[in-house]
């Protein structure tokens, strides 16, 4: 008979490490979030949920919360839509494929902050590359002030978010595609299935677990992503492009409300936990069926 405790014993070291690395900060956060905290992190009185109710009463927080949903859904969804065809194309054999793969991966190699800074320059109203390109092509007869209002700034930020998420997503899909045996396609072709049918009946269903993993990982990553929005607009003008992380940063380090900032970060953690749990359960159920 197997020793039932053995698996637990074997995973114990990593569990302890995870506990130290993950639970300790979370316990710390809970402490800060439930206390009146000085600007430099000294805990004063226990104040229960006061920090949380202050958040709910703050319209900027609610707006940032909703905007984070839009941001995450748009970036993750957009990256998915772009990455599947890109991965399928990169998986076919064509001349210069390795060069194309390198080009697609390049944005990944550049630090996110650098990418955002370059885009901030490119979107400059007076001397930005994008405006001069648009004017040169005759697509615009006036400079567009991209970052001056959320109506243009936020869609641009989403686009950049998609751009930098595509390499990672494509890599996952390429791995998935290479695990699909060629025989399936040969057999399908013999039976007379066209490329569209092959994609719908073979590629996509077999890629599904990889799509699920990409959605979960990207959601966690994009939800917490700070540099693009911070570098380009700092969540402005007038907090109109704030997402939860930038709101948190301002609360903690501009205004010095560490208690409320910790509360935001706990809310973020809770949202991600719930999302991941629900999503993984749904995805698993789909797989078993």
């Amino acid at each position, binding site marked *: 008979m197997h020793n039932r405790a053995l698996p637990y014993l074997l995973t114990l*070291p*990593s569990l302890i*490490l995870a506990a*130290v690395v993950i639970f300790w900060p979370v316990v710390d956060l809970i402490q800060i979030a439930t206390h009146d905290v*000085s*600007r*430099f*992190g*000294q805990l004063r009185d226990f104040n229960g949920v006061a920090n949380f109710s202050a958040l709910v009463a703050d319209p900027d927080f609610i707006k940032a919360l909703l905007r984070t949903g839009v941001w995450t859904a748009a970036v993750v969804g957009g990256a998915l839509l772009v990455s599947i065809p890109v991965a399928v194309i990169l998986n076919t054999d064509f001349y210069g494929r390795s060069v194309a793969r390198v080009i697609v991966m390049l944005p990944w190699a550049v630090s996110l902050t650098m990418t955002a800074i370059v885009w901030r320059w490119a979107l*400059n*109203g*007076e*001397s930005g590359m994008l405006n001069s390109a648009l004017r040169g092509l005759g697509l615009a007869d006036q*400079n567009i*002030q*991209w*970052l*001056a*209002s959320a109506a243009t*700034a936020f869609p641009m930020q989403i686009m950049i978010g998609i751009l930098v998420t595509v390499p990672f997503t494509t890599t996952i899909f390429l791995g998935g595609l290479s695990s699909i045996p060629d025989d399936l396609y040969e057999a399908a072709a013999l039976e007379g299935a066209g490329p569209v049918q092959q994609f719908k009946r073979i590629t996509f269903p077999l890629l599904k677990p990889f799509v699920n993993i990409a959605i979960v990982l990207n959601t966690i990553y994009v939800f917490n992503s700070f540099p693009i929005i911070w570098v380009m*607009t*700092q969540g*402005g*003008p*007038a*907090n109109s492009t704030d997402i939860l992380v930038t709101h948190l940063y*301002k609360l*903690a*380090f*501009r*205004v*010095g409300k*560490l208690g409320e900032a910790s509360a935001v970060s706990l809310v973020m953690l809770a949202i991600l936990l719930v999302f991941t749990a629900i999503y993984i359960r749904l995805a698993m159920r789909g797989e078993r069926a």
Partner: protein
Amino acid sequence: MAISKWKSGLLAGLSVLALAAQANAGEVRVTVAEYSSKTGPYFQEVEKAFEAANPGIDVKFEVVPWDVLLQKLTTDITAGTNADLSIIGTRWLIDFVQQDVAEPLDSYITPDFKGRFIDTFLSPSIMDGKTYGLPIAASARAMYYNKELLEKAGVANPPATWAELKDAAAKIKALGGENYGYGLQGKEIETDVYYYYAMWSQGSEILDKDGSSGLDSAGAIEAAKLYKSLIDEGLTQPGVTSYAREDVQNLFKQGKVGMMITAPFLSNQIKEEAPNLKYGVAAIPAGPTGARGTYGVTDSIVMFKNSKNKDEAWKLLDFLFQTDWRAKFTQGEGFLPVNKEEAKMDYYVNNADLAAFTALLPDARFAPVIPGWEEIAQITSDAMQKVYLGEGDPEALLKEAAAKADGILKK
């Protein structure tokens, strides 16, 4: 796998221990703000010269970009790993004093040492009669104008009032092309300050005499309407809410902007990046009653209460505030002199640009010393961005902001 994780865990643990044990005897750690690419090399030089003159004291400068300085200090102090000395924005000092992390320096300061400073710049670092910091950098704001643009537009003298400024801006706009009259900052740090210039000239103050917010006063509303009218009539660069201070300065260096208000360091930048630009520096425009105000800023160097090497740290401060070292720093960064002896040097006396700044010092306002000031500044910036974007009536937006600010002031 598990073993390597253990190892890295141990290593992480050891490095935490190492951090805690960092305060060796005779070691002075200093956090300094990176004002420009010259800051790092300057403090390296200081380190060499000071260590040569004081064997046994080991100085370590940590150069931190301005944008993250407050964040670094907050986390360092929270974790108890802060340096012995640090440069801070003087407007943050009240938090440091109230939280009891700053050491009063009075026991070290001799009358002779105190006499080295210009009072205007030392006084913001004094609270409740105690000196908590020494002004390491000082700055004020004045109006830069592009001589060539004004000449082309037929404006003989730099505008002295906001009415004249508006008039000059309209003439520059009439030149056509990508020329903008008044460079208006609408993004990031000091967006609120850019509005105060107009507000002060209307006779309003950040805080009313009774200590409540002055944002809902008649002058403040008038100033917001003035800026809004400049935007609406196309007398500023388009899309002001996408222009941080550096962006407006870049426009000025490119010769596209007629007038803008900023700090003395722009002169240094123009000398290096746009040496052919013909510009002048003048007073900030006055309002209808002749009132005007500029923004005075000092950064202070403070000693932390938990420093274990206070005497050594003080030696370093004494060294830093010698005339020669001060002059080298101030001139490299483009600040104003804070030492009396330094101010008498030819470099400052014969410098027309700097003279315009020092002439404005009697009208200088420093950021009010109140807790929660950063939050009030943020509220003001947000309100102004809404005004600039046209997201509401200036009067209503300012009254709303004043109410929010009052809520913080009452705490």
